[in-house]
């Protein structure tokens, strides 16, 4: 009798330790980045383009990368919203409940979600070669769109599925066409879409492997879709590769910028999704 209660206690302690280790690692990662990067973090970092001797440790900032990342993510978002929203509406409100087709779509979304970003990068690049597009803002946008589309679709679909079927039925019984019904429902699903978008941004903005071959790299802010675009994760990666210590330190500072962006995105996504489901874990 004593034995099993002792066992209970021991395992509870082990489990709590495991949870604390995981929490500790998160704190460790974030504090490492901040500890190394804070000394080099200046306002110039986010307001200036790389200056002449930037890669030797001189003047400048990573505005090129911030702008490039923002451009790419905005473009990718536009594409994926236009495709995701109709798809999610279709599988939830047009196809019959539990239809084989919707199951097949959801299944392929699951798989697309699991495809590594490097494969998207390679596929995107192959596609660009085929179409005769050089590494550019456009290429980056297209590839990142491929990466974030399944993420957006899955999380938006998950939230849409939670919507009760009373409202759709009520609308249909009023004589609305399905399309009109969907338009009304979209208003209600807005926070869900916002969550999905925030998640997609978080994933898209931090990924380096997709844009590695497809977006190129530049010290300037791209002025058109055909020009190459720098991105924040790649900028961090390249600066890290430099032998100059100042440049490395600026990589850490850039990492802070990226981390802060992710923190903001993650918390706001949770804020919006908490409006839907109370306790997800």
């Amino acid at each position, binding site marked *: 009798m004593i034995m099993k209660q002792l066992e209970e206690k021991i395992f509870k302690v082990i489990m709590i330790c495991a949870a604390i280790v995981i929490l500790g690692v998160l704190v460790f990662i974030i504090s490492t980045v901040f500890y190394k990067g804070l000394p080099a973090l200046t306002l110039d970092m986010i307001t200036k383009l790389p200056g002449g001797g930037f890669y030797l440790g001189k003047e400048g900032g990573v505005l090129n990368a911030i702008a490039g990342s923002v451009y790419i993510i905005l473009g990718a978002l536009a594409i994926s919203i236009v495709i995701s929203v*109709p*798809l999610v509406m279709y599988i939830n409100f047009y196809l019959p409940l539990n239809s084989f087709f919707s199951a097949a779509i959801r299944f392929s979304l699951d798989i697309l979600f699991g495809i590594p970003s490097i494969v998207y990068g390679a596929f995107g690049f192959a596609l660009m070669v085929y179409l005769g597009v050089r590494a550019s803002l456009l290429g980056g946008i297209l590839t990142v769109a491929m990466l974030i589309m399944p993420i957006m679709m899955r999380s938006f679909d998950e939230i849409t599925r939670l919507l009760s079927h009373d409202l759709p039925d009520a609308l249909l019984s009023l004589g609305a066409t399905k399309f009109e019904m969907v338009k009304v429902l979209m208003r209600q699903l807005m926070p869900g879409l916002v969550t999905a978008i925030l998640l997609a941004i978080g994933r898209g903005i*931090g990924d380096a492997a997709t844009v590695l071959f497809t977006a190129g790299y530049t010290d300037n802010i791209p002025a058109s879709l055909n020009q190459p675009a720098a991105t924040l994760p790649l900028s961090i990666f390249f600066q890290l590769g430099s032998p100059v210590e100042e440049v490395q330190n600026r990589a850490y500072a850039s990492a802070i910028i990226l981390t802060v962006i992710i923190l903001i995105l993650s918390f706001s996504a949770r804020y919006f999704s908490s409006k839907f489901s109370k306790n997800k874990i």
Partner: protein
Amino acid sequence: MRRLRAVKDKTARYFMLGIAIFTILFLLAIGLSLFFKALPIMKEKNLWVLLTSSDWKPFKGDFGFLPFILSTFYVSLIAIIIALPFSILTSIYLNSYASKTVKRFFEPVIDLLSGIPPVIYGIWGTLTIVPLIANKIAPVFVEFSSGYTVLAGGIVLAVMIIPLLISIMVEVFRSIPKEMIDASLSMGATRWQTVKKVILRKSISGIIAATVLALSRAFGETMAVLMVCGNITQIPHSIFDACYPLPALIANNYGEMLSLPSYESALMFSAFLLFIIVVLFNGISRFTLNQIEKRYQF
């Protein structure tokens, strides 16, 4: 007016149908295009030789993928071995023991861990894990290690797949009917006895599916692993050797080697290989997880 409404409705419907079909075909398109890009090298060399040879001299036309395949495998295996106990214990804790407050506190922790970009993980790995291995861990076992090793890749990767494992396992544990847990508790079983004999037993397929899914995520992870595992073309003989996983191979060389057609095709072959493995692993585990979800919905 009514006509217009009907037309609008119909147009929207076909547009949506088109997108739906496109989504399914997209997967096929990726696979096919990678396959055709990889075809030249598969024609040129025996597939068996490509997979089992360890001669990698692209400029001489030798493409043996074994070092890269084994590197990928070892790094992922170590990641799973490290991540699995932590994930299982934490998910059980969150599912069966933790109070609501703790659960609510842990949700953003998992969110953040899965949201942190690979590059940041890479930085963390190079700054902390690599020196730790080089200075503290490796000297105990081997004479010298740079720290950029299989082990470093495995540890960084473990942290990256933990949030995925936990979020799926918590789902799996939650799908167990409460009546079943109550039945065990009402007979005077302790919580841990219930976990051990009922919950884990009932979730075994879900845990395996989650593991396979995490493994396939680990196979494809690029930047973070690339930054910490050394990137030396060799078959690693211990966890303190450097290694060179497939995604890192693609990332480091692709785009620059277009002048050498067979090299490009070889890199595409590795992307294709990655694609096939990931689709297979994902397919199996997602299918299992869907079945679990369906079975316990009532």
